[in-house]
C-alpha cells in the first residue's frame, strides 16, 4: 500500500518536473525590473522622504519647481516653475508656474499647488523640512511668507538675503516636490494635510506614477498618461527588494531582472565579463570617512588628528576594496560641488605619523575602538585602516554592529572612532559645510547636532565662516570661501575623509538610456527603453 503511494508520488514529481521545464528567463518587454535593497522605505510622502531609495522613487514620480542638468549641476532650470525673479533686497523670490500642465490625476498644476506643497512640508515638519525652513520659515509664519499672488504666480520670502543658488538648490530637493493639492485635500483626516494617506499613495505629476509599494518586497511604477513631458517608452518599472547581492548577480545574468543595483567589486568585475551585461556608473556626492570623538582626550590631541590622516593607504583601498565603487577624495565637498577642493594632500606616511605621535607624547601609540557597520565596503575599509594604524602602534578594536546600532552610538557621542558615509542633502555646498564645519553649541542637549557636534569638535571660527558663506551673492567669492573652509577642515578636523562614492549599476545590454545621476534623486528611469 505504502510502496504504491510512494511510486505515485515519485511519478507525480516527475510529471511536475517535466511541466515546469526551463525557467522563463526574460523580463516583459514593456517593463524595467531593477533588483535593489529597498528596505529603507518608510513613507512615500514627499514631505517625509529622506532615504536613498525613496528619494530616487520621488525623483521619478514627482516634479519639483526647479531641476538641474545631471551632466552639469551648475545649470539650473525651471520644471514646474517657468521662471523666477529675485527682489532687489534679495529676500523675496517670485515664481511663475508653467501653464497647461497636469497632475497624474488630471487636475491642473497651479500656483496653489506649489504654495500648498511648500507650506505643507513646513507645517508637517518631518525630517527633511529643515531644507526649506532654514530660510526663516516656521509653522506660524509660513502662510505669510509663501503667498499665492495669482493663478500662476507666488512669492517666497526669506529672513535674509541668501545666495540665490543656495535657495534654488534647496528647492530642487525632494521635499520641494509639488503635490496635487485637490487630491491630497480629498484624503485629509483630522487636519493631517493628507499625511496618513500620502504615506502610501501618490499625488504627483512626474513621468511615472506610483502604483504600489509592498514593504520589503517591491515598488511598482506605472507610466503617467497625463505627464506633460515626453512620455516614457516603458509602461512599468518595478523595483524588487533583493537583499542578497549574490542573488542579484544571479538574477541579472539569467535575465530575470534588467538592472542589479547593489553588486560588490568582485561581482561587478565578474558581470562585466558577460557580453549581455554593461555597467552604468556615476560619481555620487556620498563620502566615506572616519571621525575621532574629541571627548576622548587622546584623540583630541591635534597631532593625533593629523597623524591619523597619514595612516590610511588611500590608493591601495581605492584599487582594491573600493574598486569600481569610489575614488580617493579628502575634502568635505564632493567633486562637482561649487568650490570643491579636489587635491588630495594625504597619503600613507608611517614615519611622519610616528613623529607626530611622539610629539603628542604617544611614541608607542595607544588603543582605541572603532564602531563599524557590518556591511561592505565599510567593513573592508575599517579592516584596512586598522592594519595601517597598527604600523604606528595604534591598536584599533573593531566593534561591528547593525547600521542603526552604530548610528545610535554615534549620535549619542559614545564612540571613539566612527566609520561611515555622509551624503549631501542638496547640491549646494552649504549642506556639507554646515555639518562638517559648524557646531554652534557643543553641549550634549544642543539643538543643532551636526557631524562636528557628534564628534564634539568645537568650531567657533569656522562656524562664522559657514554662516557668512550663505550670504555671499557673488558666485566666485562664495566658491573661494568654501575652498578655504575645506582646507582648514582637512588640516585640523577630526574627520578623515577618504573616498567619494561611485555608484555602479549592472544593466542588461538590451536596456537603452539607463543612466545614473550625481544625486540619489536623479537616477531617472523615464528615458529608459528596451530593444
Amino acid at each position: 500500500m505504502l510502496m504504491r503511494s510512494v511510486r505515485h508520488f515519485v511519478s507525480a514529481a516527475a510529471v511536475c518536473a517535466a511541466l515546469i521545464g526551463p525557467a522563463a528567463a526574460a523580463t516583459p518587454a514593456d517593463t524595467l525590473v531593477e533588483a535593489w535593497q529597498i528596505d529603507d522605505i518608510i513613507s512615500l510622502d514627499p514631505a517625509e522622504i529622506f532615504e536613498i531609495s525613496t528619494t530616487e522613487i520621488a525623483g521619478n514620480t514627482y516634479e519639483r519647481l526647479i531641476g538641474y542638468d545631471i551632466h552639469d549641476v551648475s545649470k539650473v532650470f525651471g520644471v514646474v516653475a517657468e521662471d523666477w525673479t529675485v527682489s532687489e533686497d534679495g529676500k523675496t523670490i517670485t515664481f511663475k508656474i508653467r501653464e497647461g500642465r497636469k497632475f497624474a490625476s488630471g487636475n491642473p498644476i497651479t500656483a496653489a499647488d506649489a504654495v500648498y506643497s511648500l507650506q505643507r512640508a513646513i507645517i508637517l515638519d518631518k525630517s527633511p523640512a529643515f531644507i526649506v525652513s532654514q530660510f526663516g520659515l516656521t509653522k506660524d509664519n509660513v502662510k505669510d511668507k509663501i503667498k499665492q499672488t495669482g493663478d500662476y504666480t507666488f512669492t517666497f520670502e526669506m529672513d535674509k538675503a541668501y545666495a540665490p543658488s543656495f535657495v534654488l538648490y534647496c528647492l530642487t530637493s525632494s521635499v520641494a516636490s509639488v503635490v496635487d493639492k485637490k487630491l491630497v485635500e480629498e484624503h485629509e483626516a483630522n487636519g493631517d494635510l493628507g499625511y496618513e494617506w500620502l504615506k502610501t499613495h501618490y499625488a504627483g505629476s512626474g513621468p511615472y506614477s506610483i502604483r504600489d509599494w509592498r514593504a520589503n518586497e517591491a515598488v511598482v511604477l506605472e507610466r503617467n498618461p497625463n505627464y506633460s513631458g515626453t512620455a516614457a517608452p516603458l509602461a512599468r518599472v518595478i523595483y524588487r527588494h533583493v537583499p542578497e547581492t549574490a542573488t542579484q548577480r544571479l538574477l541579472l545574468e539569467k535575465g530575470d531582472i534588467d538592472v542589479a543595483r547593489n553588486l560588490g567589486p568582485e561581482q561587478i568585475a565578474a558581470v562585466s565579463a558577460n557580453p549581455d551585461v554593461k555597467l552604468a556608473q556615476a560619481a555620487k556626492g556620498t563620502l566615506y570617512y572616519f571621525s575621532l570623538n574629541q571627548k576622548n582626550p587622546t584623540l583630541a590631541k591635534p597631532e593625533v588628528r593629523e597623524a591619523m590622516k597619514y595612516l590610511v593607504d588611500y590608493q591601495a583601498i581605492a584599487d582594491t576594496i573600493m574598486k569600481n565603487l569610489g575614488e580617493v577624495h579628502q575634502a568635505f565637498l564632493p567633486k562637482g560641488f561649487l568650490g570643491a577642493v579636489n587635491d588630495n594632500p594625504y597619503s600613507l606616511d608611517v614615519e611622519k605619523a610616528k613623529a607626530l605621535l611622539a610629539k603628542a607624547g604617544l611614541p608607542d601609540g595607544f588603543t582605541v575602538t572603532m564602531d563599524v557597520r557590518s556591511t561592505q565596503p565599510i567593513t573592508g575599509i575599517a579592516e584596512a585602516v586598522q592594519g595601517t594604524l597598527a604600523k604606528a602602534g595604534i591598536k584599533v578594536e573593531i566593534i561591528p554592529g547593525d547600521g542603526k546600532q552604530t548610528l545610535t552610538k554615534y549620535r549619542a557621542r559614545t564612540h571613539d572612532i566612527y566609520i561611515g558615509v555622509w551624503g549631501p542633502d542638496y547640491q549646494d555646498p552649504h549642506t556639507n559645510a554646515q555639518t562638517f564645519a559648524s557646531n554652534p553649541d557643543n553641549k550634549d542637549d544642543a539643538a543643532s547636532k551636526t557631524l562636528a557636534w557628534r564628534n564634539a569638535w568645537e568650531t567657533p571660527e569656522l562656524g562664522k565662516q559657514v554662516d557668512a558663506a550663505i550670504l555671499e551673492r557673488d558666485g566666485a567669492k562664495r566658491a573661494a570661501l568654501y575652498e578655504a573652509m575645506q582646507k582648514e577642515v582637512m588640516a585640523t578636523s577630526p574627520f578623515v575623509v577618504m573616498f567619494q562614492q561611485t555608484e555602479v549599476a549592472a544593466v542588461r545590454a538590451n536596456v537603452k538610456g539607463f543612466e545614473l545621476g550625481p544625486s540619489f534623486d536623479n537616477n531617472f528611469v523615464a528615458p529608459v527603453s528596451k530593444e
Partner: protein
Amino acid sequence: MAAAFGRFVSTLAATLLGLLAVTFVIGRVIPIDPVLAIVGDRAPAQVYARVRAELGIDLPLWEQFWIYCTKALSGDFGTSVLTTNPVLVDIARYFPATIELATLGTLVGTLVGIPLGVYAAVRAGSLGDQIVRVLGLVGYSVPIFWLGLMGLLLFYANLDWVAGPGRLDVAYDYYVTPVTGMLLVDSLMQGQTEVFWNAVSHIVLPVALLGYFSLAYIARMTRSFMLNELSQEYVVTARVKGLSEARVIWGHALRNAAVPLVTVVVLSYATLLEGSVLTETVFAWPGLGTYITSALQSADMNAVLGGTLVIGTTFVCLNVLSDLLYRLIDPRTRR
C-alpha cells in the same frame, strides 16, 4: 473536555505573556534607537524629540509594557514603522507565504523521511542505512543558506530546471488577487494555471531545501523509534504468528512508533514556521521570517512583538494539536 480547554487557554495565555515580556524587554534594551528608523540620520533635533515622544519611549518601561498589553488585548498591535501598516495587516500578508513554504516542506520531509527512516531501521547496519544516516547528518549540520545558494547556482543558474528567487516571475505579478495569501491555492482557485505553474517553479527549490532539512530530522527519529519497536517482544510474536514482514513493519511496528513520530513531525513543522528566516532571505521570499528579521534590525518593536506573538500562538496550538493526534492514534493516552 472543559478542563482540557481551560488548560489550553491558560497555557496559551502564560506562554504569550512570557514571550511578550521577554521580547519587550529585549526590544527595549538592545542598543538600537527606534527613532532613527523613522527620522533617519540627518533629521534635526526637534523632529527627533517629537517622534520619540510620539512613540511613547520616553515613558517608564513598565508603563510602556502596560499600554502595549492593554492595546494588544483589544486586538490593536500597533503600527509597523517599516511598512506603516497595522501589524495585524502585515502578518496577514506575510504569514501565508511562510505557511505555504513550511507546510510543503514538512509534507516532503514526512513523506520521504518516514519511509527512509523505516528502511534504515529495518536494514540497520547495511550500506543503505549508512547512506540514510549520512544524508541525515549532512541535512542537519550544513548551513541551510549555503545549501540554498548552491541549489540556486546548480538548478537555477546552470541547469535551468527551476525559476529563481521570489515567489513569481515579474511577468505574472498582479494576475492573482490575494485571498488566502497562499499563491498556489489562490492561483488555482482563480483558474490561473499559468501563474500556478510559475509559482510552483519558484517554490520547488526552497521547498526541496526545507523538505531536506526536515527529512533529515524525521528520518533520524523514525529510525531510532523503529529500532526500538523492532526489538520489542510483540514484533517477535507477530513474526512467530506468521505475519508477513511488511505487515509486521508497516502495520505493527510503525503504528506504535507513530505516536512519538507525530510529535516529531509537528515539532519539525513548528521549526520550519519559525526558523526559515535564512531560507527566506536567500530566496527573497517575503515571509514572516523576513518580516521579523528586518523589523528587529530597525527596532520596529510593534512588528517584532506582533510577529513573535503569532509564532508563539502557533507553537502552542501545534503542541495542542500533537496532543490531540496522540490521543487519536493511541487510545490508551485518552485516559
